[in-house]
């Protein structure tokens, strides 16, 4: 199975990189961008064939390593 993990900063945590990207977009003439939040996208190929077990396993990976839950949230999509 394939797991797709999005790691994003928690709301309330300042994102200076996102802010810089927003300013750059404005500078390039793209109006109406109210905010930019930058995150990470991680793809995992798994041997596991059961979606439920795959999700549990990736959830543990996120809590232990892939995300820092002090500052980040994560979202997991499992695909067959």
């Amino acid at each position, binding site marked *: 199975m394939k797991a797709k993990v999005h790691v994003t900063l928690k709301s309330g945590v*300042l994102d200076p990189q996102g802010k810089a990207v927003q300013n750059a977009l404005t500078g390039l003439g793209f109006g109406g961008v109210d905010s930019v939040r930058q995150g990470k996208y991680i793809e995992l190929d798994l041997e596991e064939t059961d979606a439920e077990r795959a999700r549990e396993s990736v959830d543990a990976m996120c809590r232990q390593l892939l995300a820092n839950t002090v500052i980040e949230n994560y979202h997991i999509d499992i695909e067959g």
Partner: protein
Amino acid sequence: MKSAVIVFPGSNCDRDVAVALEQSTGRAPVMHWHGDPQLPDVDLIVLPGGFSYGDYLRAGAMAAHATSVMPTVVERARKGVRVLGICNGFQVLTEAGLLPGALMRNTNLSYVCRDVWLRVENNRTPFTEGYGLAQVVRIPVAHHDGNYYADDATLKHLADKDRVAFRYCDRDGGFRAPDNPNGSRDNIAGIFNESGTVLGLMPHPERLADPRLGGTDGRPMFDALARALG
């Protein structure tokens, strides 16, 4: 006093801190490779500055979670062995859960490499008793991810429990925005764990511990540790 410096792939201040430790203690520290879980019995463990694992994933994450020695470091720290994390070492300590909060990208997005002023906020620990309370010292920083973040409740707890070791300040010990080099909340440059036995800080005391390097404001930390730990 026996000490060990943990060496990760990408550490680059391991030798500097070893020189500072030997100067103050008269004894060279053990240089301990991260892949060896058999850490000798020591009184002080140092996690040095650098860019362990090239800051892959997050600064300090791989060193904290994927090295053989870290479970031993965490276990010893929980037993009260003194642990000092400098720069990347501070990042590793937060990632490993030995200190609260996280070190994020500097708010100005720049790598900051210069001397900063620090105010000593708690001088009643073996790390800081060589300084006066509210003494202003000059110590270099060199980092891209030194922006200390913790939520409001954690910041209040740190302040209430006197767990802030150093704050970025101006030459006179006051706080103005330009004197915070990285955007750290509450100007925090270094913090202790609950029992005051673990210190993490972004600035590099080992880089100004010899007059030939242009200053000695970092030396009292190593002298104090040598006195306290015998």
